[in-house]
C-alpha cells in the first residue's frame, strides 16, 4: 500500500508507482484497478495526492495557455490553419486574430499570408484535439524577420531557465530578440544570430551538465 516508487525517481512505462486508493493519477500516469502505473518515461512528481510525471521525451502536446510558434498552412473564410508541430493542425479564427474590424469579404492574406510564422497562444483544446489559437496577449505577433530553429520540446524549459534566467542572459549578451515557443521552435532576430544558434544547440546537447549557464555566458563573451 502507498507509494512504491519515491518522488523524483526515474520510471519507464509499466512501472507501478503506487498502490491503493490514496493517490490520484495525473499526467503520464494511469490507474489499473488498485495500482497507479507510469505510461511514459519520466520522473515522479508528487503534488499532494496527485502523482504526475515530468516527461523526459515525447512530441509536443499543447496545453491551454502555451505560447507557440506556428506556420500558416491554410486559409479559410473565418480564419487560418496553422502547423504548430502537433499531429493536428491548429485554428486561428478571425475573431481571435486581431482587434481590428475585418470585413466579411476582406482578403485574409492581408493579415497573415501563407508560410508566415506567428507567435500565438493556445486558447482552447477540444477532446478530439481541435486547437484554437489566439493573438490577443502580450508578445504575440507575426514574425517578419529573423530565423527559426527547431529544438526538442522537452528541452524548452532548459532554454528558458530558472524564472527565465537563461533566456534573459541570452538576450542581454547578444542584443537579439528571442522568442521561445513551447512547441520547440525558437525565433531569433538581430544581433549576433550565429552565436546564439550555437549557444542554443549547446544548451540542447548539454542540458544535463551542471554549470551550463556559466559556460554559455563565457561563450557569448559575458563576464
Amino acid at each position, binding site marked *: 500500500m502507498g507509494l512504491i516508487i519515491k518522488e*523524483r525517481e*526515474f520510471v*519507464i*512505462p*509499466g512501472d*507501478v508507482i503506487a498502490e491503493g486508493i490514496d493517490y490520484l493519477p495525473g499526467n*503520464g500516469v*494511469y490507474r*489499473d484497478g488498485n495500482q497507479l*502505473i507510469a*505510461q*511514459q*518515461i519520466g*520522473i515522479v*512528481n508528487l503534488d499532494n495526492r496527485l502523482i504526475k510525471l*515530468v*516527461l*523526459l*521525451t*515525447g*512530441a509536443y*502536446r499543447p496545453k491551454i495557455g502555451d505560447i507557440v510558434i506556428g506556420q500558416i498552412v491554410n486559409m479559410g473564410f473565418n480564419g487560418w490553419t496553422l502547423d504548430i508541430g502537433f*499531429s*493536428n*493542425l491548429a485554428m486561428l479564427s478571425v475573431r481571435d486574430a486581431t482587434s481590428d474590424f475585418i470585413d466579411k469579404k476582406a482578403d485574409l492574406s492581408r493579415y497573415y499570408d501563407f508560410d508566415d510564422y506567428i507567435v500565438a497562444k493556445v486558447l482552447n483544446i477540444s477532446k*478530439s*484535439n481541435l486547437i484554437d489559437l489566439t493573438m490577443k496577449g502580450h508578445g504575440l505577433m507575426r514574425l517578419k524577420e529573423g530565423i527559426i530553429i527547431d529544438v526538442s520540446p*522537452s528541452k524548452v*524549459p*532548459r532554454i*528558458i*531557465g*530558472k*524564472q527565465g534566467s537563461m533566456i534573459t542572459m541570452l538576450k542581454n549578451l547578444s542584443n537579439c530578440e528571442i522568442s521561445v515557443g513551447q512547441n520547440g521552435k525558437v525565433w531569433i532576430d538581430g544581433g549576433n544570430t550565429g552565436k546564439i544558434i550555437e549557444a542554443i544547440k549547446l544548451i540542447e546537447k548539454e*542540458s*544535463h551538465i*551542471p554549470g551550463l549557464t556559466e559556460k554559455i555566458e563565457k561563450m557569448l563573451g559575458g563576464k
Partner: protein
Amino acid sequence: MVYSKRVDGRKFDELREIEAKVGVVKSADGSAMFKIGDTIAIAAVRGPRDLYPKFMQNPKKGILRCNYNMMSFSVDERIRPGPSRRSKEIGLVTENALLPALNLEEFPNAVVDVFIEIIQADAGTRCAGICAASLALADAGIPMKDIVCAISVGKVGGKILTDLNKKEEDYEDGSSDMPVAMLPRKNEISLLQLDGEMKQEDIDECLKLAIKACQKISEIQRNALMEKYQTNQIDDQVDKENQDG
C-alpha cells in the same frame, strides 16, 4: 536422434547474448536497436502525425502502423528487397502484438508509424523487431501500459528450449518454434504463433520458459532506457518546477 547438446553450447533455457540501445536513429522521434545473438533489429518511430488518406483516420483514437523489412543482405542468400507476403504478415502481427500495450486515445485522427529493419538475421527476427519497436515507442514518448518483450521458444529434436537460432530452426529431426510476445508486468500474452507441431504439455512447458525469458529481456530493456535518460533527470526536474512556478 536426440538433441542433447545445443549447437552453440548454451543451456536449454539460456538466451543468446542481448544488447539493447535506445536513440540510434537521430532523425526519428524515437528509435532503438535490439540485438539477440546474431539477429539485429533497428526500429524507428515517427509520429504521432497526421494521417492521410483521410478515410483511414479514426476520430476516437490514433492508429498504429508497423512496417517490417528485411535488408537484402541480412540473410545468407540475398533476398529481394521490398515488401513481400512474409514481411507484410509480420508487420501485421507486430502491430497486433504492440497494440494492447499502447494508449492511443490521446491522439485522435493521428497515426504512429513504426519501421522495423532487420539488418542481420539469425532466427527470431520478429521477436527482436517487437522488442526494438516497443523500446522505440517508449523513446518517442507514446503512452504505453507496458514495454512489450518477445522471445521464441520451441522444441528441437524432442527437447524444449529457449531462443532458437537458425541452425536449430532448420534442425533435420523435427523442429518447431513458437514466438511469444508478452506484457511482462502481468504476463499477458500479446503474440503467440507456432511453426511446427507440438503437444499440449509441450506448449505449457514452452510458455513457462517464455515467461522466464521475457522477465530477463524486460530487465535489459529497462537498462537500455535508463542508460539514455537517467543522466539528465535531476536537472530537468528542477527546471520544470521553476517554470511551472
